[in-house]
């Protein structure tokens, strides 16, 4: 329970464990309560007790403090509810990866645990069982900032496996921080996937009554069942309210706010569809229908790929070694896609060395264009390439995939220019 070494020893010596009922006599005050796990921000000499009133209090333990165990905790058994699948309903497989959406709180201790079973995940939204037959598979249990390329590969394989074994749709609860990257990675790895593969996240953890986890999950299930769209999508709130959801193309979506429920936005395109609180779906355009085709998965990735953000005064000397070690380099440039003139020779050195340098824009919105200003033209001469209005993160993921799944640099560059999963476009319009 991660108390300091001294306190752990003290508690161990009287067989006190998380959940034990303790009596602490410290400097004239007596407290009785249940031993809670140590809070990371607590002082090292503080023991946390949950009092009968429900309040947690931190009690300083002094040399002369007396601690007694009054009672040991009763192990609680969690009930797994077996639910018979209904023939009339479609089958959705939930593939758990971890994150806010797939964790629950032990209300006794306040500790956050990962959801490890179907019921752990479905309990948060029991009515989802009226929408589809749900089975769950926990692949990882990690925060999304700890995701890496290996996880993407394993996830893509698991998705293809489930679809090819008969799943009608896949829902992937995922931490929101890097959900855009994973969605982009699966968009390329799964190619013309025949079923909907939907990422959902939560901006408020599912232990809270106000969590957006359950409504996002329910909207995702409804989209999977009624949407008749194949592809990789992200479904999250479209506004701060629990009554509107947006379906985003997996390769076009970005987390644009640190905390709001409607943090995810489609960039350079409208969302694929909107869903209201009753599950009505309104599409904004055409798309691929669901089919029974086998889903091919291509998970190879060139890991020697980096993503850099240009900033004024960027010093090539600092980045030379990283750039020269990489097969693929994505730079989010300023404006139309610029870097400063000092960086241009380094781009040339990298492309001369056989690497691909892809330029995107920090503006996120709009297409890059290196023909407009001198610097841009110099960058083109140095061998840099642009990829229309592709997001920097998507370009980074796609470049890894393109380099690993093509025979030579020229084909890889061609692949980068060609939309595969709706990730870029040569045409943008004004909303009228």
């Amino acid at each position: 329970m991660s108390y300091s070494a001294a306190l752990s020893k003290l508690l161990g010596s009287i067989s006190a464990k998380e959940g034990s009922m303790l009596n602490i006599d410290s400097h004239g005050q007596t407290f009785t309560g249940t031993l809670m796990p140590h809070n990371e921000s607590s002082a090292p000499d503080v023991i946390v007790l949950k009092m009968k009133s429900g309040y947690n209090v931190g009690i300083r333990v002094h040399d002369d403090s007396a601690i007694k165990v009054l009672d040991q905790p009763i192990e609680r058994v969690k009930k797994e509810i077996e639910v018979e699948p209904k023939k009339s309903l479609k089958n959705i497989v939930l593939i758990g990866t971890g994150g806010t959406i797939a964790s629950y709180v032990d209300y006794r201790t306040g500790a956050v645990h990962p959801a490890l079973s179907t019921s752990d995940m479905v309990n948060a939204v029991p009515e989802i069982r009226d929408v589809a037959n749900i089975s769950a598979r926990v692949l990882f249990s990690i925060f999304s900032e700890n995701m890496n390329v290996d996880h993407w590969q394993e996830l893509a394989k698991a998705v293809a496996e489930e679809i090819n074994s008969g799943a009608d749709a896949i829902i992937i609860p995922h931490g929101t921080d890097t959900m855009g990257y994973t969605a982009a990675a699966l968009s390329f790895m799964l190619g013309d996937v025949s079923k909907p593969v939907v990422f959902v996240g939560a901006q408020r953890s599912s232990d809270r009554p106000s969590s957006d986890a359950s409504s996002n999950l329910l909207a995702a299930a409804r989209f999977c069942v009624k949407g008749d769209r194949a592809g990789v999508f992200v479904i999250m709130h479209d506004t701060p309210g629990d009554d509107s959801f947006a379906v985003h193309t997996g390769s076009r979506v970005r987390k644009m706010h640190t905390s709001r429920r409607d943090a995810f936005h489609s960039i350079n395109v409208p969302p694929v569809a909107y869903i209201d609180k009753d599950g009505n779906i309104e599409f904004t355009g055409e798309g691929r229908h669901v089919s029974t085709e086998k889903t091919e998965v291509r998970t190879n990735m060139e890991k020697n790929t980096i993503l850099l953000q240009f900033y004024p005064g960027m010093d090539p000397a600092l980045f030379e070694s990283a750039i020269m070690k990489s097969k693929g380099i994505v730079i989010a440039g300023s404006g139309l896609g610029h870097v400063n003139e000092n960086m241009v020779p380094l781009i040339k050195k990298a492309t001369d060395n056989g690497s691909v340098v892809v330029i995107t824009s920090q503006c996120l919105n709009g297409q890059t264009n290196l023909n407009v200003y001198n610097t841009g033209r110099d960058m083109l001469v140095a061998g840099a390439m642009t990829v229309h209005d592709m997001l920097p993160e998507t370009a980074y993921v796609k470049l890894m995939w393109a380099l690993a799944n093509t025979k030579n640099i020229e084909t890889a560059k061609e692949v980068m220019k060609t939309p595969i999963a709706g990730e870029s476009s040569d045409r943008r319009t004004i909303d009228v």
Partner: protein
Amino acid sequence: MSEDYEMMCGIEIHQQLDTKKLFCSCESCLCEEGVGAYYRRLRPTTSETGEVDRAALAQFQRDMGFRYQCSEGTTCLVELDEEPPHEINADAMETSLVFSTMLGANIIDEIQFMRKIVVDGSNTSGFQRTSLVATDGSIDVNGKKIGILSVCLEEDAARKIETKGNEILYRLDRLGIPLIEIATAPDMRTPEEVMEVAYRIGMLLRATKRVKRGIGTIREDLNISIPNGARIELKGVQELRMLPEFVQNEVNRQKMLLNVREILTKRGTKAVPVEMIDVTDIFKTSESKVIKGALDDKGKVIAVKLPGFAGVMNGNNKTLRLGSEMAQYARTKGVKGIFHSDELPNYGIEQKYVDDLKNFLGMIGEFDAFVICAAKEKKATDALQMAVDRANYALLGVPEETRDPLPDGTSKYSRPLPGAARMYPETDVPPTLITTERMNRIRANLPEFPEQIEKRLMKQYGINQQQAQQIVRHSYDDLFAKIADEYGMASVAATMFLNTFTELEHDGLDMNAVSHDVIFEMFSMLKQNRFSKEAIPVLLRELAVGTDIEKAIKKLGLESVDADEAVAIIAKIVKEREDFIRSKGLDAIGPLMGPVMGALRGKIDGKQANDLLAQEITKLIG
């Protein structure tokens, strides 16, 4: 439990602090306007054993939703639950520590905020953030020690604006205002003592100088029980002076219920089965508005037999009122009310219908009774289920309840007492370690206690103890000192606070409705001779009902007159009574002061009137 007392009562006081909000830097005040209406739902979360509270889930599945309004300056993403809480407001935390120290309470070494689950929509997050700051304090009230169980620092809830169908509209301005919650031990034994304790705690809170004043900034919950009765929580009383009345009425109510139990036990009344009988046909031709309205709305009249309950629902000269308790339970299911046999014929239901119904139900014995409800069938049967369950509980005694205070000093049933709160740690807010150095500093700089303030006022401004006590009791000390310092009117102000205020409150006026700023402004105008000090009582009467001070002066015709004008008015009075004056000489001054003050009251002061009158009389008689 010893039973040599008539009642016992504990108080829980919630006081808003005059700081910014507890977890963001929004202003902590209320707004007239709200904008936007973000829709949200609050889902009952799974418990530690992976189970969901079925009742709460059922309510969720009935599609209950909430809409939230924002207000300029007082709400941000934190109130909307779109951003994690910021650091704890330092002033609020300090005030709670200072106040706890004033109660001699033990401060918790490391204070931890908790999430207390609340799914009625009043908190956007679905929980209230609350922390236990101190335990085991006490206060002294009239020589008796009253225990303080706990002092908590927590956030206030959103304000309910309206309920429409299955949506409740809340405004977020109040959400997040820091509250100190003080819970006393159940140490009070008389209704007056309850008020005295509330006054004392209020005074100590205001002594910190960091609490809000005015309507709605302090709310009291009362926990009342009598021997063999039950714990009743009366929630949200705002007027201190009504506390004894609420307590007494609750004591009387519980005694009445014990009386009812005794009567029923003697009769041998047994709990009745809830058997719904459709009696719509009997009332087809009834002219009763309620019944006609329900039947026109495709409703039904449903009856339940209540053998053994006659006379206790409304009997013995209205001192037995179980029927009113039953009706309050029934109304929680959305019906306007029920009719029981003790109150019929009445409400447009004639004797003929009562007789027909009695015969139909076979309720013709001495103590046979019935209850009916006219509404849509589901609503009517739900309501009757509540009413009959309540009637049956009368056999056991007093049910534990949460009740809402009513303006007349009584209360009505609101809901069953809540079970133990579900709380788990607020992990977004780090714990606060309270250092010894910090507590030493707080102890060395405690604010003045009320007794110290009284002594200072007496010494510095020469007022008497009774005046000083009154001023401090109602926390007018700062205002009083300001009036005395700036206008030199200590004695006028002291007299006003002690005598005039008491008199006006006795007449039923709420002096809290007159803000400190308005009182200060009144003295500023008095200083400028806009009116005389004799006008203060009539002026305050106007101010207490909300009249603007300028308008009040005009309305009352208080505008002071100049000396020449006063002389002219007095001369006229003297002239009119010339014969009388010539016969009495200067002895006429006394009798004539009446008519003179009648014409000049509030415009010049009494002494000046006396002098002018003497001067005019002397002039006349030479």
